[in-house]
């Protein structure tokens, strides 16, 4: 049975269902309860607003302060404590309020979460989920608007997930919570209010399986998280001129479903990768390199990357709008490829 839910509520439902099913699941983060996280008596738990985007609203009254923990402002502190708690048998889900705050927690993720199973000779699990919020387009300036997918993807030992729809958000978060290894779960702040049909019951979407959002024969467009929607917009525009784009949402960047991407490129002979991140050492370059390495002989034109600028995300509204890739830039990149073929 499905009904319409937005991404925010789908994530909330996944947390609620997994916490109800497994009392080892706890939540930690700054202000995740919101207002009522600090005191048992006041303000009333029912008034807890659930963090800056309200994603965890309603969980405190259901599961209590022992399991929905508002922490001090200390990313090393709660990510590290979650790692310790995970080693001792819990399944903590922590929230880094904005992905931009990764800097203050990165040693714990880079040198501890990602490596502990390895240095334990495979014997110990660190089943933590780090939920975090990414993305430009919120007028939130340079330190609250980055995506940084590639920083996490670069680290062996971490799994990296970035859903573009509410249905994927729920299924992938449930998989993340049940996963025996550390998972970075990146939510895009501009997608929280996007609706989708979402099944009521709990369900798990496996990692490493891309979603073909739209089939097409002429060009493959791989979109990274929010850019999946922009790619679909571009595909609709191209379709008016008889150009049929295949749009792929990898959904998880580590592991990456390279098979689906390569099969599509082999079919269409053209690849455009759209990522709102900075262009250097990004998912765009990673996926482009994958195709250049493994599908070179199928390519009928140069691979194109449509990305944000290699600059901080601007605070100025007109500059921020210019920073974020839009459908027109994707259409232009596709036309560029087709024109080159014509010459």
């Amino acid at each position, binding site marked *: 049975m499905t009904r319409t839910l937005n991404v925010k509520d789908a994530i909330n439902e996944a947390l609620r269902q997994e916490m109800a099913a497994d009392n080892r699941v706890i939540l930690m983060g700054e202000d995740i309860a919101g207002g009522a996280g600090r005191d048992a008596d006041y303000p009333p738990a029912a008034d807890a607003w659930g963090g800056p985007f309200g994603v965890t609203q309603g969980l405190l009254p259901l599961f209590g302060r022992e399991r929905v923990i508002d922490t001090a402002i200390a990313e*090393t502190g709660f990510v590290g404590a979650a790692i*310790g*708690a*995970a080693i001792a048998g819990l399944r903590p889900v922590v929230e880094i309020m904005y992905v931009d705050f990764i800097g203050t927690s990165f040693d714990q993720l880079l040198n501890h979460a990602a490596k*502990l199973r390895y240095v*334990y000779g*495979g014997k110990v699990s660190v089943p933590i989920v780090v939920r975090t919020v990414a993305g430009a387009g919120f007028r939130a300036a340079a330190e609250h608007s980055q995506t940084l997918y590639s920083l996490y993807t670069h680290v062996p030992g971490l799994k990296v997930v970035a859903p573009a729809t509410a249905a994927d958000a729920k299924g992938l978060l449930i998989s993340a919570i049940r996963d*025996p290894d550390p998972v970075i779960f990146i939510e895009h702040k501009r997608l929280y209010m996007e609706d989708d049909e979402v099944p009521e019951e709990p369900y798990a979407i496996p990692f490493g399986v891309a979603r073909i959002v739209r089939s097409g024969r002429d060009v493959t467009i791989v979109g990274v998280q929010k850019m999946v929607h922009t790619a679909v917009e571009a595909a609709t525009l191209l379709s008016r001129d008889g150009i049929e784009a295949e749009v792929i949402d990898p959904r998880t960047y580590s592991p990456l479903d390279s098979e689906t991407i390569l099969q599509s490129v082999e079919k269409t002979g053209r690849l455009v990768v759209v990522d709102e991140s900075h262009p250097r050492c990004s998912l765009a370059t990673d996926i482009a390199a994958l195709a250049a390495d493994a599908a070179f002989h199928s390519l009928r034109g140069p691979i194109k990357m449509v990305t944000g600028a290699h600059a901080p995300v601007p605070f100025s509204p007109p500059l921020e709008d210019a920073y974020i890739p839009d459908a027109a830039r994707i259409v232009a990149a596709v036309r560029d490829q087709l024109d080159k073929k014509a010459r």
Partner: protein
Amino acid sequence: MFDTPLQRLTPNGDLLGESPLPLEEIRRLYQAMLSARVYDRKCSVMQRQGRLATYAQFEGQEASQIGAVAALRKQDWVVGTYRDAGAMWFHGYPWVNLILGRTGDERGGRAPDGVNVTPPSITVGGHMIHAVGTAWASRIKGDDSVSLTLFGDGATSEGDFHEAMNFAGVYKTPTIFMCQNNGWAISMPRDRQTASKTIAHKSIAYGVAGALVDGNDLLAVYEVCKQAVDRARAGEGATLIEALTYRMGPHTTTDDPSRYRTNEGVEEWAQKDPIERVRRYLESEGAWDPAWQAEVESEESDRVETAVSEAEALTPWTADEIFEGMFAEIPPHLAYQQSLLRRRP
């Protein structure tokens, strides 16, 4: 506050006040300290022979490590560093695992079932917060285990120390922070780490209990740790203990301390040796004689030699196992890389 470190045994082995432990238990801990020293010296030799990678000696810190762990129960956690092999071993992490770890074999990280000891932390300071997490988990799960984390004076300069202490204070986690102040962080002396009068003073700011103890005094270390453990188990929160000791050797086998310190400190602290002072005490109590000494030395030497043989008898890992232990299951992209390695000429 924290003007004089607690002492129960003088360097001459004279008992001050009452012993917190019966003689038979002190004999057991004495033997454990001997084992730790045999292991430590053996590893230094093996490193020089090219049989081990870089090794960090802990000679001089045996009382701080064995005394602290002696205050724990089996279900408690030990979260230490590369210089805490004595503590890890005494809590059940076998010598063979520790030796394997120093040969670069990650199978050394596989602690036996039920041994709650994390592998030695290599990054300085990043592990202390894990002992807040393991302690927190105990409370949430409703068991009464406590967590002991060991670190040096240098680690207290890391921001991680602040976050761990702050969390332990705010959330009253059953964590015992055991700072072995051995005077040196590679070439940097203690007075270049902090302007605080003592490290124990930092407990005041975090709202946790604090203690300053002679780290070369087995009985005093045991006593303050036991008090801290009892407080933690009773739900009264964390303790920061500063154990004053000395790094008798180099930082690691890559280091030459003669380039930055004179031998005076080493000579001075040799007079305060943690093992010799217990020996003198036991002798004065009629609980030590040369025959027993020879017997336990040979026992501990055999124990370490057996561990070395076991570690060296293990078939080394091959390149095929490079992704071993990364995830619960090897994902397809790593299986693909594994196949590339197999194809290598």
